[in-house]
C-alpha cells in the first residue's frame, strides 16, 4: 500500500480561518485526508507548529527546507519521494496516488459517536 505524508506549514489556525484569506483548500484537504484515513489508507499529516521533529528527522523534507525555506511548505511525500512542494495536492492527485475514486473524497464523513 502506498504511503502519503503531508508536511504542513505552521498555522495559527489549522483550518486556515485566521490566515489572511479564507483558504478553502485547507478545509478541502482536511476532509479528503479524513475520508482517506477512514478508508484505511496510510496518510499522515505533520504540523510544523507542534511536531517540528518530524521535519528534521525526515532527510528529504529537511533538505527541501534548507534549499527553499518556509515557502516550500506544504511538502507532500508519496512513498518517501517528493511529489508536491509549496501547495497542497488536488483531490485528483490523491485519488491517482492511492488508487481511489476521487468522488469518494468529497463524501461526508459519518458522524462519530461521542462516548464520553
Amino acid at each position, binding site marked *: 500500500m502506498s504511503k502519503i505524508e503531508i508536511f504542513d506549514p505552521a498555522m*495559527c489556525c489549522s483550518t486556515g480561518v*485566521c490566515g*489572511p484569506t479564507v483558504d478553502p483548500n485547507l478545509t478541502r484537504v482536511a*476532509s479528503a485526508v479524513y475520508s482517506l484515513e477512514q478508508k484505511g489508507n496510510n496518510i499522515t499529516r505533520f504540523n510544523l507548529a507542534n511536531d517540528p521533529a518530524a521535519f*528534521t528527522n525526515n532527510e528529504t523534507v529537511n533538505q527541501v*527546507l534548507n534549499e527553499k525555506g518556509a515557502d516550500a511548505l506544504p511538502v507532500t511525500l508519496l512513498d518517501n519521494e517528493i511529489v508536491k512542494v509549496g501547495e497542497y495536492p488536488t483531490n485528483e492527485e490523491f485519488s491517482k496516488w492511492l488508487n481511489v475514486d476521487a468522488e469518494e473524497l468529497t463524501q461526508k*464523513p459519518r458522524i462519530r459517536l461521542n462516548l464520553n
Partner: protein
Amino acid sequence: MYPVYKPIEHVETPYLFFTGKGGVGKTSVACATAVTLADQGKKVLLVSTDPASNLQDVFGLELNRQPIEIPSVKNLFASNIDPEEAARVYRENTVGPYRDKLPESVINQMEEQLSGACTVEIAAFDAFSHLLADDAIFSQYDYVLFDTAPTGHTLRLLSLPTAWTGFLDESTHGASCLGPLSGLGEKKDMYQKAVQSLSNPEKTMLILVARPEESTLIEANRASIELRDIGIENQLLLINGLFLSGNSNDEIATAFYKGQGEALKQTPEELKQIKTVSLPYVSYSLTGIAHLRQLVSENRTIETEMKEDEIALEPLSDLKDMIEDFSINNTRVIFTMGKGGVGKTSIAAAIAVGLTERGHKVHLTMTDPAAHLDYMFKNSAINQDLSVSSINPEEEVEKYKKEVITAAGDLSEEERAYLQEDLASPCTEEIAVFRAFAAVVERSEQEIVVIDTAPTGHTLLLLDSSEAYHKEMSRSTGYVPTSVKNLLPRLRNPKETSVVIVTLPEATPVFEAARLQEDLKRADIVPKWWVINRSLYRAGTRDKVLMARAASEKQWIKKVQEELAQKRALIPWMQEVKIGYDQLKEFVQS
C-alpha cells in the same frame, strides 16, 4: 443604590474568579477579598495572572508560580502565573531545540504562529487547570482566588468533544488554538475536571468587575453571557469606584458624578438581572495591605491624605501639538490604537477635524460600533474636505464566516462546530477587518486617512513578507489587489504612517499600551505619539478625592514620558458627551 461589597457576606464558594476589562481594578478587588478572608482565619490562596504584576507593589514581594506565604498576612498564600511568560516558555521549549536544525525562515514561521493570543490564553488556562483539578489544593485551602477568568472561547474549545477525538492527534485539522499545545491529549482529564469545577455553582463563583462607565459595563455583560452559556451561572456584579462625594463647587466633580450616573442608567438589561454590589471611589491607590483592608472593611473612613507631591512633570504637549506635527510632516495614514474604552475613537475624530481645519483633505474611518458616527457629526455641517465612513467589525466577521463556511463545502455536524469555533478565535476579527482596511488606506494617496484602530503586530507578521503573503492573498481571489500589495510597506514607513497609542494615566492601561507597542515593534512599526487621555491632573480639579487621584496619575504620566513614548500629548478629563464637528474644532484649534 447598591449594597456595599463585603467579602464575608458575598463570597459563597471556595473558588472565585474575577473578570473584567483591564484597569477596572480586578487585581485590587481580588487582593482585598483575599486579605479579608485570611483575616477571618481562613486559609487562602491568591493566584494572579497579571503580567505586569501589581502584586509586587501590593504585597511588596516577588511572586512566581510556587505559592508562598505572605508574611504580613497570616493564612494568605499567593502565586503569580504570567500567561505571557507561560506562552514564552512554551514557545521556547517547542522551537529552541530546532534552531540549529532548520533554516531561519522556518524557525520564524514557527515562532510567529506560537505568538498569537490563542497560545497565551491556553497557556493561562493550562496553569489554572493544574490548580482547579488538584484535589490536594482543594482540601488544603479554604479559598482559591484567581484574578482573571478564562474566556468563553477557550472554554468552548475545551468542551467541544471533537477536541478530544482524533483531531488532537497528528491528523486532520488540529484545533486552531489548541493546536499549538501539543500533548494536550494527556491533559484531557485534567481539563475536563477543571471545566467541571468551573461550572459547579457550589464550587465556583464569578465576580464581574466593572466601573460605572459604559464600556466596562458592556464588557462585563459580554463576559457574563458568554460564561453563563458555558454553565458558569453563579455570578456577582461588582461596580468598582462609585463616586460618592459631591463637592458641588467643583465643576469636574459634579460632571464626574453625573457621568457615572448616566453610565449606570445604560447598564445592559441582562446585567441588571445579576446580583450587584459596589465599592466606593477612593482617593488612595490600592497598594499596601492597609489600604486593601480599608477598602472592604466594615468601618470605612474615607481618608483623603494629601501626600507631599514629589513628582515633578515636564510640560506635556496638547492634542493640537500632535495634530500640528502630523500636518507639518504630511503624514498620510494615522491609526489610533489602544485597548477598548480608552477613547481612541474620539481621539481619531479630533485628529481628523484638526487636520481638516489645517487645510488638509481628510477621510475618517471608524470601526467602533458604539461611536454613533452619524450622531457625532449630526447637525453639524461637515466640512467639505472631511469625509467619514465606517467599518463594522461584526458585519465584516459575519461576511467572512459565511465565506469560510461556504468555501468549506459539505461538513459533518462535528466538523462544522469545529470550524465555527475556529472562527470565534481572537484573530478572526482582525483578519476580517484587515481586508477592509486595505481598501481605505488606498485613499491616502488623495487624502489623509485616519482610522480608529490598528491591526496588531501579530496579524501583520502573519501576513508578512513577501511571497508568502502575496501567495496567501492571491489564493482566494486569484490576483493581489494593489491596495493589499501596498499596505504593509506603507504601514511600515514612518514618513507615511503614524500609529498613535492611546492610554489612560493608570497602571493597567499603561502596561497594556506598552505591550501593544512591543507587539507593533515586532512588526517593525514604531509608534511616535502616545496620547494620555482623561487626565484629572490635567483637568485641574479642586475636589479633594479627585485631587488625590490626580496626584497618583503623575507617576504613570512620568513613566510614559520617560520610558515609553517618543512624543506624548496629555488630554484633560472631560465630560463624555457625543460631540460634533464644531465642538471638536474648538478643542483642536491651533
